[in-house]
């Protein structure tokens, strides 16, 4: 099990937070905290040095903020996933972080279980983190910034097959691959294939980005939150 443990790097300027998350995550047999970074630049360097699977990234840090660090890390290492740590969930910074390529976000006061679960979900990549909050976040901020469903994004939706569009909509609703398979009455493997195709066709790196795309293109209408 240890050999396949999820390798985590924690980047936060506060020693308390780094320490705390390390202790909590290290109690999990399948998660291994391999390093800590004290600011954005440090995080970029440590990622190159340690090659973690997941980076827990604070947003407000000296030297280099978490959002820019996320952007750099993802550009250099597309397979590494970033989970943003935040005090407020409905925060513009979180929205920016998602745009910078973060796979999800986590409140700093999350329980130990939520923390571990979030790391696992993001590492596996087959479900969304906190889809409800994310939907609200994306819709509110894309509205706040006056970017109505953008035409170019809509055109790209046209590249998808009908089935793929359907799967994308389900992704945006926060359903996992297994749940989507159940809904569409197909094998989970089929859903995985669809997801893979969607990401390739739209040029996206993971399902979080796919969900952001679905909302911002207007494919999915926010309802009843």
């Amino acid at each position, binding site marked *: 099990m240890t050999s396949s443990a999820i390798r985590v790097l924690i980047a936060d*300027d*506060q*020693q*308390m*937070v*780094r*320490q*705390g*998350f*390390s*202790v*909590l995550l*290290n*109690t999990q047999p399948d998660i291994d*905290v*391999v*390093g*800590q*970074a*004290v*600011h954005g630049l*440090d995080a970029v360097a*440590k990622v190159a*040095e*340690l090659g973690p699977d997941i980076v827990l990234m604070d*947003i*407000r*840090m*000296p*030297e280099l*903020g*978490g*959002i*820019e660090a996320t952007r750099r890390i993802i550009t250099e290492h597309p397979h590494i996933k970033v989970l943003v740590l935040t*005090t*407020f*969930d*409905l*925060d*513009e*910074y979180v929205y920016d972080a998602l745009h910078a390529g973060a796979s999800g976000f986590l*409140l*700093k*006061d999350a*329980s*130990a279980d939520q923390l571990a679960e979030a790391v696992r979900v993001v590492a596996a990549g087959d479900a969304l983190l906190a889809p409800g909050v994310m939907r609200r976040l994306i819709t*509110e*901020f894309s509205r*706040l*910034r006056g970017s109505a469903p953008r035409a170019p994004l809509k055109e790209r939706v046209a590249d998808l097959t009908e089935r793929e569009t359907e799967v994308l909509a389900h992704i945006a609703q926060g359903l996992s691959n297994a749940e989507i398979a159940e809904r569409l009455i197909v094998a989970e493997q089929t859903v995985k294939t669809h997801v893979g195709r969607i990401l390739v066709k739209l040029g996206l790196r993971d399902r979080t980005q796919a969900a952001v795309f679905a909302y911002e293109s207007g494919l999915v209408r926010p309802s009843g939150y």
Partner: protein
Amino acid sequence: MEKRLTRWLRVLREDLWTADANPLPPSVWLRWLPHGLVILVAIGTAIADMDQLGDGYNLGTETGLLIAVAQGTAVGLAPWRPVPAWWLSTVAVVVSAMGARTQLIAGHAEFNSPWPWSPPAMVAQCVVLYLLALRVPTRAAAETLALTALATYILQGLIGSANYSSTGMLAVALFGGVVLLGSTQRGRREARTQLVEQAGITAEERARRTLLEERSRIARELHDVVAHHMSVISIQAQVAPHLTENPSEELKENLAGIRQNAVEALTELRRVLGVLRSEHPEDQYGIAGAADGTAPHAPQPTLDRLGALVENTRAAGLAVTVEISGEVHPFPPGVELSAYRIIQEALSNALRHAPGSNVRVELDHYPRGLQVRVINSRPARPAPPSPGAGHGLLGMRERATMLGGTLMATETSHGGFVVAAFLPRSDDPSGSHISTGTTGKTATGKTATGKTATGTTGTPATGTTGTTGTTGTTGEKAR
């Protein structure tokens, strides 16, 4: 002797060969001057009218006196009650014209007398109409003019008389002229008053909005700091049981309670704050954006970033010196943040309003609080006018007040400016600095004993290099 004479002559020339004079003293007499003039005109027209009516129209002394007094009264009344004055004047003219008509036709009046408007009556009506047009809406003024013209037409055009030289056309033309003049002046004054009023409203509105924005921004910053601490508390409460071998149930329960309270407080804070933050608060400051050097995703600054701020202000062209006195204890982050922001704003003001001046930043640490003073000398050159003046001061004062402190900003006797603020350590003097001290201690203690210290080879003793300002270790580190 001759010299003295020359001097006298020079004095005389200086004193008397000049057009200069001090402005008139503001006096009650002067204020009533226009009214006095009107009264003089009233008396003048009354006398002239009496002459015209009594002799010219041959109406007899009593009737002439009566109508002349009425005409004079109308003029005298005009500055106070223009509309009744107009009625009185018009009626007087109609009555006198009707009386004169009989005498003219009968040939008792002076041959070729001006009729229906006698010259004194015309002057009187002109004064009345002008004063009226100044004071009443244009429509009312036009109505009085129309009625006057109508009365003239009825008298001269419909009723008619004999043996007179016509003054109807001339009178109506004159009246039209003065009403136009009066109404125009009134309209211009109205417009100006409205403009001034509107400007006043806009300024007030803007000031109020600025105040509200300022408040919410400050509140947000302070809440940020608090929320941040709450998160750390919730994390620590979760971590604590993992740090001992066999934590007792009571301990676990207690820690769970702490965590739960922290989480609830955070939930409340999120609700209060309404979140959805659509602006970067740091960007609003002039030099700040440049001086922070770490915009928008940097942590809220504390006093340990003062050096960088001063350095950047120097680079922007001010000679800044810093004096720190008193025994340095770390202050609660809210206080440090506010002190930093106040200094930042004061420096940016100095840059804006006192280019090329010398600035002294003084920080006095007292057990009960922090005294901040930013003093700049007289500007080396006149500052360019800047529109947003005053809002910065407002913000500084809000910050100080929110912390229960005070702020004073005033010009110095040397032509410079001083901003002085006192920020109390906290409302409860036994409170926060002790608790922050403990936090600092726990932090170092845990680094030594924590299990991760061995596991994380990549981060040797990095704990103290970060901006741990908010945990209370900044003070010791910065000095």
